[in-house]
């Protein structure tokens, strides 16, 4: 008898779950009575945003960045525009999953106003219509400070931006080394020099395994250094054989490097944090980071020795821009636009550039600033580990098409890890 009751309940629950899940698929509320923001005069948008709350969703894994947003940006925004900024730390994949489920459920009024995004995630978001826009061209700061001819104002990992996100900052891959351990003439300023260094110090070099963001960028960067960046243009990511043919010398180079790597290249650290720990421990002599000034911050914190420096390849390293976008169902689009505009102001960009705050490269064009505004950036001290912003800009190669990234990761796993001797 008891068994039958339990079984009955079970069936009931099953039916209920099906009904509920079906029921949620329908539209909930259509719109929230929000005035439209596109094509509106800027002063009206600022007035509309006053007194509102803006929810900023983005990666929360770096305490310094979080502190900067909470303690510099949020008070500034409240003072200047009367907007309350609430930061929610969440990984971008989870944010997209959340937006996708909100879209699936037909939720027109969501919970996210600004999302910090770029690359393949922007590609996914745009492809699935998760973003509001175009809005970037309406921002005062974009009109005034952003260089429209910069390829990274038009393409994000090869994906046309079309006003669906506004540049927030720039990052660039740098190699991190200890100048007390590697001599000046041994520095890996090219793939060939990297090979020579690895042969001299076998087992002392490795990189995070793709799909780790930085490890994947490092693999692409070495491939670009060997075959030339232009070979990655105009490739169809669905045609794996063509991609493989185009990058073959680069992949063969990585397979040739494999026996000289840590653990003979049989295994790789899974995350950048693990790589940095190994570097700090002296287990390896070379590390890398997509945030060009993070090594500097780690020297200051005492995590890395003071002799640690950074370098880029002579032929350049991959750089990308990270952006801010507004979700399709943001309940406060006006507030989001004003907040993004504020983040692009020379004051905030200079404050972000300062190594003690974040050390992120500015997204705005220095040539478009007044002398007074430029001086804000001169004050930002970056320390010895840092390479100057101009030098980085001169040695910067753009990221290939986002959809190529997982294809190259897959080829790497197959040709280097599985088949490489």
């Amino acid at each position: 008898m008891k068994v039958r009751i339990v079984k009955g309940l079970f069936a009931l629950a099953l039916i209920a779950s099906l009904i509920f899940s079906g029921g949620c698929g329908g539209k909930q509320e259509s719109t929230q009575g929000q005035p439209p923001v596109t094509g509106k005069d800027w002063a009206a948008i600022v007035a509309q945003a006053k007194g509102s709350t803006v929810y900023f969703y983005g990666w929360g894994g770096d305490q310094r960045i979080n502190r900067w947003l909470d303690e510099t940006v949020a008070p500034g925004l409240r003072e200047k525009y009367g907007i309350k900024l609430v930061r929610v730390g969440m990984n971008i994949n989870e944010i997209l999953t959340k937006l996708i489920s909100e879209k699936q459920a037909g939720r027109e009024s969501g919970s996210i106003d600004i999302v910090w995004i770029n690359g393949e995630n922007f590609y996914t978001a745009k492809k699935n219509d998760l973003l509001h826009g175009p809005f970037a061209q309406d921002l005062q700061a974009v009109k005034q400070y952003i260089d429209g001819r910069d390829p990274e104002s038009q393409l994000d990992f090869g994906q046309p931006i079309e006003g669906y996100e506004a540049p927030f900052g720039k990052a660039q891959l740098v190699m991190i080394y200890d100048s007390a351990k590697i001599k000046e003439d041994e520095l890996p300023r090219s793939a060939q020099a990297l090979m020579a260094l690895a042969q001299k110090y076998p087992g002392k070099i490795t990189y995070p395994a793709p799909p780790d963001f930085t490890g994947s960028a490092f693999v692409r960067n070495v491939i670009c250094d060997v075959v030339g960046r232009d070979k990655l243009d105009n490739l169809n990511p669905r045609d794996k054989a063509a991609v493989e043919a185009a990058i073959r010398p680069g992949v063969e180079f990585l397979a040739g490097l494999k026996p000289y790597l840590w653990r003979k290249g049989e295994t790789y650290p899974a995350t950048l944090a693990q790589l940095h720990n190994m570097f700090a421990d002296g287990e390896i002599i070379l590390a890398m980071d997509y945030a060009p000034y993070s090594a500097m911050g780690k020297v200051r914190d005492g995590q890395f020795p003071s002799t640690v420096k950074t370098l880029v390849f002579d032929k350049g390293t991959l750089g990308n821009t990270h952006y801010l976008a507004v979700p399709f169902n943001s309940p406060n689009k006006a507030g989001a636009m004003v907040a993004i505009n504020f983040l692009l102001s020379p004051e905030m960009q200079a404050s972000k550039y300062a190594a003690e705050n974040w050390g992120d490269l500015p997204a705005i064009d220095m040539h478009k600033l007044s002398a007074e505004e430029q001086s804000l950036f001169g004050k930002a001290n970056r320390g010895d580990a840092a390479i100057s912003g101009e030098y980085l800009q001169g040695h910067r190669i753009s990221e290939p098409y986002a959809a190529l990234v997982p294809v190259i990761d897959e080829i790497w796993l197959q040709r280097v890890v599985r088949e490489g001797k």
Partner: protein
Amino acid sequence: MRKSITICLLLLPATLIQLWIMFTGIFSSIEQSLGYIPTAGLTEISRDYYRELLADPTFWRSLLFSLYTALFSSGLSVGLGLGLAGLMAANFPARFSAQQWFKLPIIVPHLVAVFLIMVTLGNAGLVDRLLHFAWGPGVRLPNLTMDPWGLGIILTYIWKSAPYAAFILYTFLRNTDPRLIATARNLGASPWRAFWHVLVPLLKPALGGCFILIFAYNFTAFEVPFLIGPTYPKALPVLAYTYFLNPDSEARAYAMAINSLLLLFSLFPIWFFQRCWQNESKEGS
């Protein structure tokens, strides 16, 4: 009878919510594994994702690797847990201090456990450095983390789940009639024989349940093999994660297909032990 109905009714609201959450999740992942992801523009139901997955040798390597690490770690955990529970029940060493110690690995999250194992047993870890310090350079610990044999994964899981098993089994041991052991001992059985031939058979259902709980976790959890496992072969949950990260929306279908298969494989031990118990109760009657 009336009492049991009341209990069922009282449990109903909470159960409904839990089942609802659980089944919508399962339903949605099965739906996506069949290629129905309308937000990504995929609406055609197809079994191709499963078919392609099952034809991929990487998938089979990952499946075997996950099965191997999960079976070994759960089996060894239950075995060790049984030993620990026996020691605790025998009041050895002092029971109180022992219990406090065993609680520690249960509270510590898996992520921290991975970190602890890395710090102690990893390359350039504590043990490695002590060896180096004591016997000079050249004496090194073999690779116990990120190794192709998954030793790091197994060690982490044992460190986490053996005390957990010990706690469950200890509760059962405490509730068995002590006179059974006393009688066996009185009839001339050694303590070991009494433990093995009297207590262990009594504990069989608990051992099976314990194994299922631990196996289901160790087989399907992602963070431990991701951080301390080898780059190749990847554990099945890590493979699903790699597919999930892929911006191509079709890749999500493969990720969900792997998740559905993980669920299916986790049900297998339940079915297995259920059968064992049924047979046993038939034999008993």
